[in-house]
């Protein structure tokens, strides 16, 4: 079973690196307008077909993926850090801070996620900056809750209390006892944010509030493809979305497999936990 998990992680890693490799290999020429090659269905020369401006869809898709992954990673990482910081503050700085942070978490979760994203990116005037900040500011609540709960549990656990009694400094306790537990949780929690961040970035861009239309973001590609649907150019929508799906799925799988490796209690011994 261990072998299977490592294999799965390997495959996920390869999938996630593909867009970047392909992007290097293909270069930028597919992005330029080529009026002689407009509206071509998928073929050997253009695996994903071309669009109404003759641009190669494979190149556009690959570039879009690198953008989405990049934006998603940055936003998710920032989100993770915010979550860790706030979770830590809530759990260690006393009751009032805890109440304030908990209230803030509840507030952020009280509005539908997408609406919150739209609101924040609207306030920031849209664009790349808007998307990154919006995604970063809306994904931290759940993780913060988790971190807060973990730290609180650890604080009152046996060995921490004993260490305190033995006179160990808070710093020592924090680094020797708490960190080994918290760090894996934090890493995994942040990793699990990636797929969501990427999906939400694509959604916001699709709705028109995200990355600028000049960049081949997946959301843009898909929203533009809507105009050409009735003309039957199905490849404009199928491939970019499919690739996005595969990338998100790869991230998801990666995170879940790491969870399996790091926390033995999550392994179930009954038949068939297929992931």
């Amino acid at each position, binding site marked *: 079973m261990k072998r299977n998990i490592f294999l799965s992680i390997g495959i996920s890693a390869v999938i996630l690196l593909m867009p970047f490799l392909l992007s290097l290999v293909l270069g930028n020429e597919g992005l330029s307008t080529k009026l002689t090659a407009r509206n071509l269905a998928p073929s050997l020369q253009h695996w994903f077909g071309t669009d109404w401006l003759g641009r190669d869809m494979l190149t556009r898709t690959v570039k879009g993926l690198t953008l989405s992954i990049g934006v998603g990673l940055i936003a998710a990482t920032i989100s993770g850090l915010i979550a860790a910081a706030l979770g830590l503050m809530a759990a260690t700085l006393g009751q009032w801070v805890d109440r304030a942070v908990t209230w803030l978490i509840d507030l952020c979760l009280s509005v*539908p996620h*997408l609406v919150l994203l739209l609101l924040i990116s*609207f306030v920031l005037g849209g664009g790349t900056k808007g998307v990154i900040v919006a995604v970063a500011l809306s994904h931290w609540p759940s993780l913060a809750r988790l971190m807060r709960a973990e730290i609180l549990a650890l604080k009152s656990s046996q060995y921490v209390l004993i260490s305190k009694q033995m006179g160990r400094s808070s710093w020592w306790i924090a680094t020797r006892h708490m960190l080994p537990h918290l760090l894996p949780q934090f890493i995994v929690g942040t990793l699990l944010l990636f797929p969501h961040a990427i999906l939400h970035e694509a959604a916001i861009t699709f709705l028109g509030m995200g990355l600028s239309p000049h960049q081949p973001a997946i959301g843009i590609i898909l929203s533009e493809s809507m105009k050409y649907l*009735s003309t039957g150019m199905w490849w404009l929508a199928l491939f970019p979305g499919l690739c996005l799906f595969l990338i998100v799925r790869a991230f998801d799988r990666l995170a879940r497999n790491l969870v399996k490796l790091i926390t033995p209690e999550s392994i179930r011994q009954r038949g068939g936990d297929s992931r």
Partner: protein
Amino acid sequence: MHITRLLIIGLVKLVLLLAAVSIITFVLMSISPIDPVQAYIGADMLRVGEEQRAAIAVYWGLDQPPWGRFLHWVNAILHGDFGTSMIYREPVLDFIGERFAHSIVLLLISWSLSGIIGFAAGSIAAMKQGSWLDRIIQWYCYALSSTPTFWAGLLLLIIFTVWLPIFPVGLAVPAGVNAQDVSLLDRLYHLILPACTLSLIGISNIALHTREKLIEVLDSDYVRFARAQGEHGFTLWRRHGLRNILLPAITLQFASFSELFGGVVLIEQVFSYPGLGQAVVEASTKGDVPLLMGIVIFSALFVFVGNGIAEWLYRLVDPRIKEGYEREA
């Protein structure tokens, strides 16, 4: 606890929540780079003279410092005046009502469908744990949760309106037809595809959750005993499984109003369905401040209602809580 007391507490929480959301939204709007006057006037900018602009500014309290503006706005809200939508030229509250009436049908149908299908799928997966059926259902759910909602919508749109021209490409009613002449059948016809799409996407959460809960139940001592008594299959599920997983499932469904709304926003965009979801997108992209604020507050109310019902259900239905039993840890 007395029901009236609980209700009052709930209402207080709601008021506090809406107040907080309103304040924060207002603050965000104030610091945004959008020119409020321009936002209110919009495309008519050029046609509007200086005095008119000044008048609008005064009307909205824009010449006053932020606190003044805020109080002015709160005053308006408490009188039920949420402002006028810049894009649609209608009072915001009325407009939200209209659009929500459209969305609610979509929401209700997909919410119910996804709940039922998800519950069934999760149950089957758990009862047949380890089998091919279980694996397929799990795979489908995990795949679904990685699927961009709007992409799935686009695919279904292509398949069912272009390749197999069964359904209309979008909108809620046939284009170019008078409102009175639109029949119920027409409305249903336009609803089917978006509703189905939204349902299909919404099942993964509840299916996986039901599966996990049912597996837990199936692993419990009392199910082991029921098995020892010879119970199996559908009877086992009906007698012991159903009772113990129905409540968590329904509660989860009610608590998922937040995701549901998000889904509706994307689906309405793909299918050009004139509901609240499409409205919020329009409001954001075109800078319609009053409309956007109104919808944000309304959506908070929507989510609150869902969560509130979820909490209430537990109190009302679980006999252990009913009879005042303290659950062993």
